C-alpha cells in the first residue's frame, strides 16, 4: 500500500503575548501555507501520492488548496502533477487544541506513515500525545521552537518522503525522543490529571493560567528538561547553558531556581535567552541530572505547571505533583540522518547516462 502522510498545521500558534513582551515572530497564515506547499512538493517528488490533513478554519488549507489549483492549471499542460492529492480528516472544527488531538488520533487510526507538524512546542506536544508510534516530522512555526529543528521545510518534506517510502532503513530514518510525564492528584477530590511535555516543565509561583506564556523570571522556581540545549530559546536554554544534555542521551536535567531571581551567596546568576530577543537574569540554586523512570516530587508547594513554555495547570498545597522522564517515548523523522544517507547512497540520482567509449 502506498504510504500516506498526515499533516497537522496549527493556524493559531505564534499568537500569544510574547509578541509584545518580547519580539517573537508572527508567521503569517499565507507563509504557513507556502511552507506546506514546499513540503507537499517534496513528498510528491519522493512518490507520496496522498496526504491527509487536519481541517481548520484559520485559512491555511484554503491557501494551500488555491496553490494546488494554480499548480494543476500550470502543470496540466505539461502532463505533470507536482503535488500529492490532499484529503481532509472528517471532523468538526473547534479552533482549540482538541482539534489537534482528534486529528492526530484519526490519522493514526487511518494508518498514516508519518505526521508532518507545523507549529511550536505546544503544537508538537499535542500531536505527540496522540501519535503513538507514528513518527513526527516537525517544522517550527511557533514562538519558542525548541522541539522542532530549524530547517528549510522542503528538506523536511524530502526526508519524510524518503523515510516513509522505505528508501532509508528505519533505524536510520527515525529516532527516539524523550518526554516528561506530569501527574497532578487533586488533594480535595483525589482526581488525577496527567499531562506531558516534550522539552520542559517549569514550575512557577503564578497560580493562574492567564496569558499562558512564561516571561517573569522572578516567579520561576523549578525546571525539568528532557534535553538541555544551549542552541534553543526558552527553558531548555537555561538548563543548556548550565550543563548541556543531548536529545539522544538518556535522562534530562533538573534545575532549581532562586526564589527571588536575584543573586545571593551560593547562587549562580545566569543570563539566558528565555524568549525570542529576551535575555533575562535568573538565579540558579543548583541542578542535577534527571534519570529516566524516576518520579520527581517538586519542592514548590503551590503555583502553576508550565508545559513547554505555557502555563497549563495550577496546583495548591493540597495537591500532589510528580514528574517522570521517559526515554524512547515517541519517534521523529531524523532529517539530518536521512538526507546524509540519501546523499551517500545517491537516492535522488537518476540512472547515469551511458558514456561513449570513444571520446
Amino acid at each position, binding site marked *: 500500500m502506498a504510504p500516506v502522510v498526515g499533516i497537522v498545521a496549527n493556524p493559531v500558534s505564534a*499568537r500569544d*503575548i510574547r509578541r*509584545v513582551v518580547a519580539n517573537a515572530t508572527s508567521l503569517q497564515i*499565507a507563509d504557513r501555507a507556502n511552507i506546506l506547499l514546499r513540503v507537499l512538493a517534496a513528498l510528491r517528488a519522493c512518490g507520496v501520492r496522498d496526504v491527509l490533513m487536519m481541517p481548520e478554519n*484559520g*485559512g491555511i488549507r484554503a491557501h494551500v488548496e488555491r496553490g494546488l489549483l494554480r499548480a494543476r492549471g500550470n502543470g496540466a499542460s505539461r502532463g505533470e502533477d507536482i503535488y500529492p492529492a490532499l484529503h481532509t480528516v472528517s471532523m468538526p472544527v473547534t479552533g482549540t487544541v482538541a482539534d489537534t488531538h482528534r486529528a492526530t488520533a484519526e490519522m493514526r487510526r487511518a494508518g498514516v506513515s508519518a505526521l508532518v507538524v507545523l507549529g511550536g512546542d505546544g503544537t508538537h506536544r499535542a500531536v505527540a500525545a496522540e501519535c503513538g508510534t507514528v513518527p513526527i516530522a516537525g517544522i517550527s512555526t511557533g514562538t519558542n521552537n525548541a522541539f522542532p529543528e530549524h530547517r528549510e521545510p522542503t528538506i523536511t518534506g524530502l526526508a519524510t518522503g524518503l523515510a516513509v517510502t522505505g528508501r532509508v532503513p528505519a533505524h536510520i530514518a527515525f529516532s527516539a525522543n524523550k518526554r516528561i510525564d506530569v501527574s497532578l492528584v487533586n488533594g480535595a477530590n483525589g482526581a488525577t490529571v496527567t499531562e506531558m511535555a516534550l522539552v520542559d516543565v517549569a514550575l512557577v509561583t503564578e*497560580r493562574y493560567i492567564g*496569558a*499562558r506564556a512564561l516571561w517573569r523570571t522572578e516567579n520561576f522556581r523549578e525546571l525539568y528538561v528532557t534535553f538541555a540545549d544551549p542552541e534553543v530559546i526558552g527553558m531548555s536554554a537555561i538548563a543548556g547553558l548550565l550543563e548541556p544534555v543531548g536529545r539522544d542521551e538518556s535522562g534530562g536535567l533538573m534545575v532549581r531556581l532562586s526564589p527571588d531571581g536575584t543573586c545571593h551567596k551560593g547562587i549562580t546568576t545566569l543570563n539566558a535567552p528565555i524568549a525570542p530577543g529576551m535575555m533575562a537574569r535568573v538565579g540558579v540554586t543548583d541542578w542535577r541530572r534527571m534519570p529516566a523512570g524516576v518520579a520527581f516530587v517538586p519542592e514548590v508547594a503551590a503555583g502553576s505547571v508550565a508545559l513547554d513554555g505555557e502555563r497549563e495547570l495550577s496546583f495548591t498545597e493540597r495537591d500532589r505533583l510528580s514528574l517522570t522522564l521517559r526515554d524512547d517515548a515517541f519517534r521523529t523523522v531524523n532529517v539530518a540522518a536521512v538526507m546524509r544517507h540519501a546523499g551517500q547512497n545517491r537516492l535522488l540520482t537518476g540512472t547515469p547516462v551511458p558514456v561513449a567509449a570513444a571520446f
Partner: protein
Amino acid sequence: MAQNPFPLGKDELLKAYRTMRTIREFEERLHVDFAKGDIPGFVHLYAGEEACATGIMMHLNDNDRIASTHRGHGHCIAKGVDVHAMMAEIYGRSTGACRGKGGSMHIADLSKGMMGANGILGAGAPLICGAALAAKVRGDRGVGITFVGDGASNQGTFLESLNLAAVWNLPVVFVVENNGYAESTAMEWAVSCDSYVDRATGFGMPGVTVDGTDFFAVYEAAGEIIRRARDGGGPALLECNMVRFYGHFEGDAQTYRAKGELEAIRASRDCLTILSERVIEAGVIGRDELQAIDREVNALIEDATRAAKAAPLPVPEDLLRDVYVAY
C-alpha cells in the same frame, strides 16, 4: 481564606466581578424590556462578552480614552459611565447621558474618557488615533483603546487607522472583539487574511490573540500591551475571541447559528461562570459574597430602569441644544 494566587487583590477581583455582573444584568434587562416595546431605536447586547471590556478597562483611568462600537453598553459600564444615566439614555429620557437624544448607540461621557458608542462601523478607530495623538503631544501618558468587531475590522477606516497609529507611533490599542459573526456572516467567510495578528503584522505592529472569555487571560495580555503603549512603545492589536449570547441586534432570529450552538456556548463559555468558579475554587472569595453582589446589582438595574421610565422625555426646544460643544 486561602492565599490569593491571582494577579489582582481581593477588592479588585470583587470589582471585576461586579462590573461583569452589572453588564450582564443591564443587558438581560434590556433584552426583556426591548421585547415589550418599551425602548426606542435598536439595541445590540454585550452579554457573554463582559470579560473583554472588564479585563481591559481595569488597566485604565479617566484620563485614558476609549472609542466604542454599536455594541457599547459593556464598554460604557466598564469605563465607569453611570448606569442610571445609561439606562435613561437608552430609554430616550432627558436625564440620560446625552440627554436622551443619542440612545443606545451614542452613549458618551467624556468625563470618564468614554468618547462614545458609535453607530458607524469602524468609526471609533480614527477617533482614538486623534485622542492618542493628543495624549502623546501633551505627554500625559494617556492611552487610547478602540474596539471593533470582526466584521467592522474590514472597514477602510480601521485599516487606515492601523497605518496612522503605526506611522505616528501612537499610544493606541486596537481591540478586535471577535465573536465569530459580522451580523450573520461567519468570520471565516469575510476576513481575507484569516488572522488579525497577520493584519497587525502587515502594518508593523505586534498582534496578540487571547481567549476573550477568560478574564485573567484578557487582563494579563491587556496589561502588558497597555503598559507598552503608555511607555511609548507604540500601538498594538489585541484580538479577543469571544461569544455573544444574544443576536446581532435584539429581534435577530439567529438562523445562521448551528443547532445547539447557543446552548453549548452558554454552558461552557460563560465568562462570568468561569471567573466566579475560579475565585471560589481558589478559596479567595466565597459564593455568598458573589451572591451579595448579584443582589446589589439586581437592585441597581431595577432602580435605574424604574428611574428611566419615570424620567421626562426631551422637549422640542432641546432639539437644537448641545449640537455644538466647545472643548
